[in-house]
């Protein structure tokens, strides 16, 4: 046996931890080998020396100190052992399942529950959508209004139609219809500003359109501006075609401005009509008187009156005809603008403008920062209950780990 192998076993030899055959081998070797014999004796002396160390005396108050220290340990900590076995078998699996369930429920709650955590942003998103919707509705609003207004004004016309088709549920009598018609004399006017690519083409199309709908151009003028050419048309179209013409006109280009007005002149019309009829009756009476007149003086006086009445009748009839014309033919003012040509010259931003823009940019980014910060605070506060729950779970899990798993 090599000396090294022997020396490695000397420690075990001293403790009697070797097999009988090993003990024999070492006994034989140490008889022969001085180095190993010295090694053995020095080790033995060392061991004996250490074993001779006397035990140190325990401080007399140590037990009291220990019991004092131990006082703080609650009975629940010690008594937990009764459930230890059951816990070891089922508790860990159960607790992990429970923890997962709790976490799942919380997450589910957070995702689907109203006004909680993550989801709290969803209503905001909804609102944003609504807002966007409102915005688009807003932008759509004028158009709707324009659409609605002509529709209202169209009522006499649709009544007209109803009269023709006589397909109404209530089947109003002809007189009723006429009364209604009489009751509504509306002058429809509209104005449109349309941006077009080429003003010539647009003007041609416009004329075509007016002809198609049996209207006419009351007046037109074209002008050349710095940014491009423009044209103005005053169109007259039969009232029943008013809506349709407007729709067609809008197709000429980008509608930039649109407005319609309906002026109800029923009162004036009725008034003028009544006066006219009165005057007609007066005229008839004057004619009767005239036929009965015998003296030239009388005849001349009656003629004078007759002339005045007829003049008035003519004025009123003219007025009526004008009103009728206005009602029958709607007026549309169309302004065509050519799209401004792209500016080719170099343009330096106005320094004042630049400063303002810089200020605005800075302000808006600071505002954004503030809003982000406030959102973050709100988010954290919102998340607090969840953090608390997670913290409790973590604490419980840690406690379980320390006390039952790691030992």
């Amino acid at each position: 046996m090599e000396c090294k192998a022997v020396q490695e076993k000397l420690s075990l030899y001293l403790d009697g931890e070797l097999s009988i055959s090993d003990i024999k081998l070492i006994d034989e070797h140490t008889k022969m080998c001085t180095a190993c014999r010295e090694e053995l004796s020095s080790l033995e002396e060392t061991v004996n020396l250490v074993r001779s160390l006397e035990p140190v005396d325990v401080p007399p108050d140590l037990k009291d100190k220990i019991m004092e220290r131990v006082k703080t340990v609650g009975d629940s900590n010690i008594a937990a052992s009764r459930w230890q076995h059951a816990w070891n078998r089922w508790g860990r699996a159960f607790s992990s399942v429970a923890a997962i369930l709790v976490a799942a429920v919380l997450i589910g709650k957070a995702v689907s529950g109203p006004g909680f955590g993550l989801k709290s942003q969803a209503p905001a998103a909804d609102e944003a959508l609504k807002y966007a919707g409102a915005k688009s509705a807003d932008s759509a609003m004028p158009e709707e209004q324009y659409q609605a207004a002509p529709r209202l004004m169209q009522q006499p016309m649709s009544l007209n139609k109803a009269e023709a088709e006589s397909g109404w549920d209530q089947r109003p009598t002809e007189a009723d219809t006429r009364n209604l018609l009489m009751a509504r004399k509306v002058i429809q006017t509209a104005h449109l500003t349309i941006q077009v690519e080429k003003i010539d083409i647009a003007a041609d199309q416009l004329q075509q359109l007016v002809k198609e709908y049996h209207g006419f151009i009351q007046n037109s003028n074209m002008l050349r501006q710095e940014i491009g050419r423009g044209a103005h048309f005053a169109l007259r179209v039969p009232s029943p075609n008013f809506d349709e013409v407007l729709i067609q006109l809008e197709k000429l280009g980008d509608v930039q401005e649109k407005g319609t007005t309906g002026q109800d002149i029923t009162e004036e019309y009725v008034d003028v009509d009544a006066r006219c009829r009165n005057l007609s009756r007066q005229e008839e009476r004057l004619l009767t008187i005239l036929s009965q007149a015998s003296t030239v003086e009388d005849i001349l006086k009656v003629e004078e009156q007759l002339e005045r009445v007829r003049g008035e009748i003519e004025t009123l009839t003219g007025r009526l005809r004008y009103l009728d014309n206005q009602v029958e033919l709607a007026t549309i003012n169309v302004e065509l603008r050519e799209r401004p040509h792209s500016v080719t010259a170099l343009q330096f931003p106005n320094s004042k403008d630049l400063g303002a823009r810089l200020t605005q940019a800075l302000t808006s980014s600071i505002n954004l920062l503030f809003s982000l910060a406030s959102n973050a605070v709100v988010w954290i506060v919102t998340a607090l209950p969840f953090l608390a729950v997670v913290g409790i779970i973590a604490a419980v899990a840690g406690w379980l780990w320390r006390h039952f798993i790691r030992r």
Partner: protein
Amino acid sequence: MVTDEALVQQCRNGNKEAFAILVERYQDKIYNLTYRLVSNREDAADLTQEVFYRALLKLSSFRGEASFATWLYRIATNVCYDQIRGQKNRHLVSLNSAWPDELSPELPDQGAGPAEVCLKRVVFQRLQEAIAALPLEQRTVIVLREIQGLSYEEIAQVLQCSLGTVKSRLSRARQALRDKLMSERELFFAENVYNG
């Protein structure tokens, strides 16, 4: 005599007196173990308190796989390891530790003359210093084996390592300690010193 395990059961049922008996039985061994590991009486006292405190805390997890003594030793070595590893970073020195414990006049040996007593104290002090100079793992096996008198199996249970590890570690520890002592051969290996 009531077994340790029966006392442990009594403790679990809420009987603190039972624990007091366990403390009575083991405080000497634990105190000596901690003292040999940390070489400081004050620290040893504190550590002994800590050991029993932890033992009571963990009493519910004592399953009787090893004996109560072994289980308590395991806690004690862990507590000491925590303390020693923490100290490495702190470099705290007790005022008392400047005065070698073995030289402190607490232990007058009634049977020996003054010169002998003095020599013995010096030897034990140096021996303790040599043990303290060993690496922590070697120091632990030396203390558990030579001073506490544990068997190889018990040491393996305390340190939670294999029997082979205990054997080789103890062998290396003894050799290392022997090498340290050989440098003061005259002091340690003169006749009659360790026999006294």
